[in-house]
């Protein structure tokens, strides 16, 4: 066990524990806080994977924008501090079974693949310039220029759409 492995195990345990709390917490704001903890753990994993840029983006986009938006929506749609009664629907056990079956299937496949050694590990260090390469690839017509433009359109459409949907009809006069 190296220090890195111990770090990974601790972070992974924290991520899983808070993820479970996200789906089980009764108080929705607490669930959102656990979601933030999960996302933060994910950012640490990205650092472990030497993708510091993605870790920073994770914190900006997920915690700084999405999580805050979710908390905002919870505050808007709930009366403050009143989360009583069951938070799961009547068929929650079916969902649990399905999720467990899915986990078992993936774990079995993973185990099989891992035993056969099917992952062709590259075993080369990550180049220092990978961030610059990513930037160039995102605007290069040979790589991801069109996806980037499509994402831009998607975000613009999403923004206009969400304003149009959430707008109060009565305000229009």
């Amino acid at each position, binding site marked *: 066990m190296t220090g890195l492995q111990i770090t990974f195990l601790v972070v992974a345990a924290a991520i899983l524990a808070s993820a479970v709390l996200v789906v089980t917490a009764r108080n929705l704001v607490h669930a959102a*806080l656990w979601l933030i903890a999960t996302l933060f753990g994910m950012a640490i994993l990205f650092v472990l994977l030497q993708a*510091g*840029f993605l870790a920073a983006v994770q*914190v*900006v986009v997920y915690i700084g*924008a999405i*999580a*805050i938006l979710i908390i905002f929506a919870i*505050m808007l749609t709930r009366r403050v501090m009143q989360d009583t009664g069951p938070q799961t629907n009547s068929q929650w056990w079916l969902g649990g079974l399905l999720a467990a079956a899915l986990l078992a299937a993936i774990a079995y496949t993973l185990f099989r693949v891992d035993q056969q050694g099917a992952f062709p590990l590259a075993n080369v260090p990550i180049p220092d310039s990978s*961030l610059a390469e990513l930037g160039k690839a995102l605007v290069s017509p040979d790589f991801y220029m069109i996806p980037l433009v499509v994402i831009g359109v998607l975000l613009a459409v999403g923004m206009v759409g969400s304003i149009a949907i959430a707008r109060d009809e009565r305000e229009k006069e």
Partner: protein
Amino acid sequence: MEFLSNPIGVIRDWLAGLLSGFLPPDAVSLVLVILGALVVGALGLTTPLFLIWYERRLIGRMQDRVGPNRVGPEGLFQTVADALKLLSKEDITPIGADKIVYNLAPIMAVVSVLTMWAVIPLAVNIVGTDLNIGVLYIVSVGSLGTLAIMLGGWASNNKYALLGAFRTVAQLVCYEVPMILALIVPVLLASSVGVANPMSMQEVVAAQSGAWHEWFLFKAPIAFLIFFIASVAETGRAPFDLLEAESEIVAGFNIEYSGMKFGMFFVAEFLHAFTVGALVATLFLGGWSGPFVEQAPLLGVVYFILKAFAAYFLIILMRAALPRIRIDHMLDLNWKFLVPIMLAAIVAIAVTDKALPRATVGPLWNAVALFAANLVVAVIAVNWTSAAARQMRQADESRNPPGAAPAASADHGHDAPAPAASHAAH
């Protein structure tokens, strides 16, 4: 001499030599990292003791008062006395409050500001850590502050605190957009100067250390202004103190906080304001660069602090001189004025820099061209917005002719001067 040119390095080597006698190398580097973090954190936490005094004295002068001048020489220890008072106060947690979140929020507020100092370079060899994504890191830890204020407002279980939390979302999340857009410009300009890693704070400073016209303040004044305005809005201070507007929602998000928990929000706010000054100094005013800094790197700390305090002075001046902005004006200013101008400025700067590159026209003319491009964008923006404001005013007047007594349902913004791009006609 070696110590004077690289004090941190000398201390680090000495400590490493001391520790490696009885610790494995991994543990030594871990201990050094923790010590470094403690030093940066302690520095950040003690600075507000001075900042608060400085700001109160300065505001006092601006308002024709004396300001605190009793405790210690010139009132220098007033903040220490205040901190002792806060510590001895009763620590109240409201009954309906969400205890964990309520106690977590002030800590998060301080941490989010403190962690920014990890990447701000004080001199060429004095920096917490020179991340290759430093500029992005600043944005990402800054967004945690929003979360802290919002959670503090929610967990207090008080309607005014909740209103403050709602305003926080409206204001802080919105003003992150022009701030991030403005941050693109120093990175862009640094990379066109030719540094290897334009997102690292240290190299942004290095890109500005050549001559006076290399400062990004001169190359991109619009980005500087917009970054400044948006960052001041991010700190939540006057004129953008809607989140704690005393006369409207009592004290906003921190209404229920008492004792040192309130003190932590207070410290976070002052430290954040100074951090904005430090960021402006680093990103636009050349950070530690200045004359003779190659011979004596420690001189860089002096230059950096001078520049940071100059920017901080501007922030205090804004706080003392401007009244609180109305909430719809605050949103309009962001979405209809800052964001479009910043987008136009990014395009103008990028195109100009590509059309008249440093390599062919030389650094000075490149800077002049960039300044001219900024000026053109500024003139167009001011013309456009004043035309739009005039149009709105006329539409307003045709509905409520001047002279007639304003009806009860008349636009309540009628008597307030509309900001650049005024609110939509009702």
